[in-house]
């Protein structure tokens, strides 16, 4: 892969928006935060069934020790992220905005103690010794989920269903959300590890070809990854035009390979599996270093934040501690968002623990926190133009408001990826996505009812 191909930029053809970048923390190296005195580790940090605790109250745990076991196939293991004593399983508000079960661990007085067999050195181990099943098993054991924010258990994605074959692995380094820089920094600082992670994922999937997709607003990352992959067989870097929501699986596959995931289908239907760079890094650590998923990179940012930063933090750390480490909460903060501004969730408490899918903490000042007044639709067609899925948001909203759910289903509401481009662009400040989500949820339950 030569640097010349940087000029060969691709993107997805339909829809998309160009929100201001605001990558404030792009130049700030990842800083490792000290383990907190207490963590609350939610039992449900992934899509699927919540994990079942396997530790008792007052039990002593080491870092990396399994504390909750995945419940069924689509679920994920959860590990202690600090060493100390399990105080209780309690209800803690997490990023869903609801109180849900979490294991509370209080740090012990003596220093950190890691579980046996974890390699904590910085040495790069490139040699891959394990076979396909063993890699998937290790990934499952380590409790790795999609680190881009979707939090879908990775081992499920790697288990290609019968009758389908994977042809390509796409490593998602797009990070199209404004503000967030966690993946960007990770590629710059842990590029070599990510490549090994990609190799591991390729072996687990049995594919020969991998493509790393990176948007053009990260030229240093493109260069770095291109350099690293120069001598790697089968791995290439694909620069992409800056356009939101390119980080969405379906858009990324369309941009990179010009393949269209069928409506209602999965990437594997077109022979592709997509993993985030963060996931690739976690896979490297899990397989080569035996280290389960206990920490992740989180961007703490916002226009008024004193020191926008990228932190490597333990899962379960309260969000407030991260904000403090970035210079404290600015005056007139109106909204705290977990994730990016387009798809993140507004938090209703600052004690919410960092979870496996927390890619960033965004502090939005007061004057930008409130939505505009809802005005009548002037049918300017902007929502239709920006929808990357070829839907008609204005119509879906109206139909949902009128509770015409059969029509809503016919208009392909279930294809919506909830990227928020329609609400972003709407000149009348209409809450298009709010209603589309409502419609999706209702239609989903109607479909379930019908199938039963």
């Amino acid at each position, binding site marked *: 892969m030569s640097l010349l191909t940087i000029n060969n930029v691709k993107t997805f053809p339909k829809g998309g928006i160009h929100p201001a970048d605001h990558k404030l923390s792009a130049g700030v190296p990842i800083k490792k935060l000290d383990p907190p005195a207490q963590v609350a580790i939610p039992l449900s940090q992934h899509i699927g069934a919540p994990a079942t605790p396997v530790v008792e109250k007052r039990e002593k745990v080491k870092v990396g020790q399994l504390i909750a076991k995945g419940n069924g196939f689509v679920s994920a293991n959860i590990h202690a992220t600090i060493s100390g004593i399990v105080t209780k399983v309690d*209800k803690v*508000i997490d990023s*869903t*905005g*609801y*109180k849900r079960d979490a294991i509370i661990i209080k740090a012990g007085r003596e220093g950190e103690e890691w579980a046996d067999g974890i390699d904590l050195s910085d040495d790069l181990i490139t040699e891959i010794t394990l076979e396909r099943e063993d890699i998937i098993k290790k990934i499952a054991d380590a409790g790795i989920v999609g680190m881009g924010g979707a939090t879908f258990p990775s081992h499920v994605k790697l288990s290609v269903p019968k009758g389908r074959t994977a042809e390509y692995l796409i490593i998602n380094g797009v990070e199209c959300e404004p503000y967030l820089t966690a993946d960007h920094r990770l590629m710059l600082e842990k590029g070599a590890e990510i490549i090994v992670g990609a190799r591991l994922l390729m072996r687990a999937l049995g594919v020969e070809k991998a493509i790393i997709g990176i948007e053009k607003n990260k030229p240093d990352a493109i260069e770095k990854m291109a350099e690293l992959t120069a001598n790697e067989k089968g791995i290439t870097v694909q620069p992409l035009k800056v356009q939101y929501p390119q980080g969405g699986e379906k858009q990324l596959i369309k941009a990179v390979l010009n393949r269209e995931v069928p409506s209602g289908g999965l990437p594997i239907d077109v022979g592709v599996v997509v993993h985030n760079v963060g996931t690739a890094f976690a896979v490297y650590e899990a397989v080569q270093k035996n280290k389960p998923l206990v920490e992740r990179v989180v961007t703490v940012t916002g226009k008024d934040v004193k020191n926008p930063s990228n932190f490597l933090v333990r899962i379960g750390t309260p969000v407030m501690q991260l904000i403090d480490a970035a210079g404290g*909460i600015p*005056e*007139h*903060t109106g909204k705290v968002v977990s994730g990016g501004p387009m798809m993140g*969730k*507004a938090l*209703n408490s*600052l004690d919410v623990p960092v979870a496996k899918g927390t890619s960033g903490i965004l502090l939005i000042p007061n004057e930008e*926190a*409130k*939505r505009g007044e809802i005005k009548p639709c002037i049918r300017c067609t902007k929502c239709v133009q920006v929808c990357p899925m070829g839907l008609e948001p204005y119509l879906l909203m109206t139909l949902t408001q009128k509770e015409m759910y059969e029509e809503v289903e016919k208009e392909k509401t279930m294809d919506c990826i909830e990227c928020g481009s329609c609400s972003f662009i709407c000149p009348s400040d209409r*809450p298009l996505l*709010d*209603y589309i*989500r*409502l419609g999706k*949820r209702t239609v989903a339950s109607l479909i379930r009812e019908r199938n039963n």
Partner: protein
Amino acid sequence: MSQTILFTIGSITILGFLAAAILYFIASKFKVYEDPKIEEVENALPSTNCGGCGFPGCHAFAEACVNADDLSDLHCPVGGNETMQKVASLLGMEVEERAPYVAVVRCNGALEFRHKTTAYDGVPNCTIAHSLYGGDTDCQYGCLGFGECVDACNFEAMYMDEKTGLPVVIEDKCTACNACVTACPRDIMELRPKGRKNRRIFVACVSQDKGGAAKKACDVACTGCSKCEAECKYDAIVIENYLSYIDGEKCKLCRKCVPVCPTHAIHEINFPPRKERPEKKERREKPAKKVEVNTATIDNAPAVDVVKMAKKANEESVKKEDSDDKEVS
């Protein structure tokens, strides 16, 4: 001239007959036979098409009635026993009397008892807010106050009380059609037996938080203290997930549970005012009346000082929370 007129009349007449013939042919060819009883039954129904019977509209219900072997599973909640008797006599069947039901609001978390902790800025729609987060108070079970139940009501039997921010059921208009129950994303609305003399007792809370957390979020939450359970002689009260539930079928309306509730979460409706007992202790524990202010019986609720008491307690906690909030902003 006259020829033109004659020609016009003639051609129009022929056209008319032709059209009539076509209509007759189509009508007889595509006639759908329907049991005339269905129409009779449908005429006896209230034709509100509310779906409270579980069928999509009155016609479907009438069809079901005509096709049914017995009417025991079929009931029109809107028309009630009277209508069902009519339907039964039309079909030559028997039907049992059913106790009438009424919708109740199982949340008493008025604005004064349950202070806000966040500012919701989405669409004022209960389901959307519910799927987004626990709500703008610390209680993630209570009423969100956007009135989806009121919108769902076909009988104008509900309205939002602006003072409390809670929905109110107008007992006389409520037909127990179940629309509000399905509309509420938080399962706050419940259909309960209307009760003897329209009297009923229920727990006006659905919070499954532990006692302390529930009380902290809302002054009138059920904490699951099980005092009511101990008081009940008829095993009508069950505590599950830190929440008390009174079985409307088992409840004998003895009212013993009402005064023991430390948070006044148990509501009694349409009861005469309690006799004042001589013992001082009893007097102090009398407070339960307050709750009626927030239910359907606004008119006959006696003004009791409990309101003030609760308000005062709330103000104190609000002040305290104020100082807590400052850390955030």
